[in-house]
């Protein structure tokens, strides 16, 4: 018996992409310590709009750390447009599922990525359809996200 499945535990115990980038092209932060989790995701984007590197720093529980690890792994090598299309449900599926009360951890990772891309778009004068009307400071209104099937 364990709280989390093996994939989640592996991403928590051996998280990938922990740290900060030296000259990030975009930085996104989501959540707050008061709520119990806060994630920072940084990205490097090349001239072809491909995310070449991503790093995270997370204050939070096991599934928040595992979600950060998985989410950053999933966006490395992807086009920015593709990363923007990533949903919290895909993160959960890739993790092999999260307990229902932990779904919001995947939402956090999803939002932190969007915020990092938003920051990148702002700084580099880029426009993405998926970011139209996007508010990086929006409340965690959708914090429970979609459950994995």
């Amino acid at each position, binding site marked *: 018996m364990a*709280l*989390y499945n093996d994939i989640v535990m592996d991403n*928590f*115990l051996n*998280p990938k992409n*922990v740290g900060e980038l030296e000259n990030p092209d975009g930085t996104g*932060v989501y959540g*707050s*310590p*008061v709520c*119990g*989790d*806060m*994630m*920072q995701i940084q990205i490097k984007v090349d001239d072809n709009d491909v995310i070449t590197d991503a790093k995270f*720093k*997370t*204050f*939070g*529980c*096991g599934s*928040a*750390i595992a979600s950060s690890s998985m989410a950053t792994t999933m966006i490395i090598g992807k086009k920015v447009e593709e990363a923007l299309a990533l949903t919290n449900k895909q993160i959960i599926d890739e993790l092999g599922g999260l307990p229902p*009360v*932990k779904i919001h951890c995947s939402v956090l990772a999803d939002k932190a990525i969007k915020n990092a891309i938003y920051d990148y778009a702002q700084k580099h004068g880029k426009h993405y359809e998926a970011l139209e009307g996007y508010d990086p400071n929006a409340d965690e209104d959708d914090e429970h996200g979609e459950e994995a099937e």
Partner: protein
Amino acid sequence: MRNVYLDYSATTPVKDEVLQEMLPYFTEKYGNPSSLYDIGLESKEAINRAREQVAALINAKPSEIYFTGCGTEADNWAVFGTAEKLRAKGNHIITTRVEHHAMLHSCAALEKDGFAVTYLDIDKDGLIDLKQLEEAITDKTILISIMLVNNEIGTIEPIKEAAAIARKHQILFHTDAVQALGNVPIDVKELGVDMLSVSAHKIYGPKGVGALYIRKGVQINNYMHGGAQENRRRAGTENVPGIVGFGKAAEIALRDLDKHIEHSKKLRDHLRERILAEIPDTFVNGTMEHRHPGNLNVTFEYIEGEAILLLLNQLGICVSTGSACSSASLEPSHVLSALGVPVEMIHGTVRFTVGDMTTMEDIDYVADSLKMVVQRLREISSVNSAKGW
């Protein structure tokens, strides 16, 4: 790998002496204590022996001990039994913000049923203010319930003084002594309480058995309705092996109380000293002066408790946390909130409770492991001492 259990406030292992005493009552001595033939009477006798043993641990009369299914039932009985009995007299109850949920949720249920409840605050040490208690009393107050030892921060509340105030105003006084039993000396006469809840599984006895002490002459309504067990006050066939185990555990607790307290304190204090000396940005919650001998409650800043718990679990160490992320309700600890710990720091709080099976080597292993775990999580964390919260 070493296995170190530091969650004795959650539950304790059943001591072998206790188990051996219980075993015959599952098999050859299986009679119903209400039956009149020999094996029935034998069970009845066993229960009464246990009643004497539990009574001795709190200096009560055996006839003042009523066995229940758990500590929670004892708390529910005290609250609902008093509320129903004295409803005509008043509808006001005084308790504290830091009670166990067995008490808080019982009070919340009564609030929906027309009762008013005052929840006393605690100060920065974790202790109630007796002046606030006295000022909260109205002519409608029918019950004051204050826990003897807090389950999260281990603070020992001034029950003798609080009960004296209740008595002065002729109000019934109940205390939840589930965490206190076997860890601090309890004398119901000296404390002057009317009711007191206890549980077996916190003192190396089995789960599924508790007791409510009801001082002779105190009248409250029944909570469980049915047969004539427990002198007609608590219905239901007795959990004979459980009760026998509770009795034996109580006997051992009384016999070894001084030794247990000394042992617990020594280990707890060593853990505290090592943590505070070797791990920066940590602090202890609650006073060290009036405290459960085995309890240590520590906040590790900039990291989250469930993550600490999981990593320690990987190293064979069992602890509990006040973090919201570890609870099904996702609510951070109400006790630490009442103590004034900032919410972001409550998430990084760990409760360690040592007990009779804990050794000094265990404590050093835990301290060494903690250093590693805390450092590792701080490397991952998006907040740190340089940036601050």
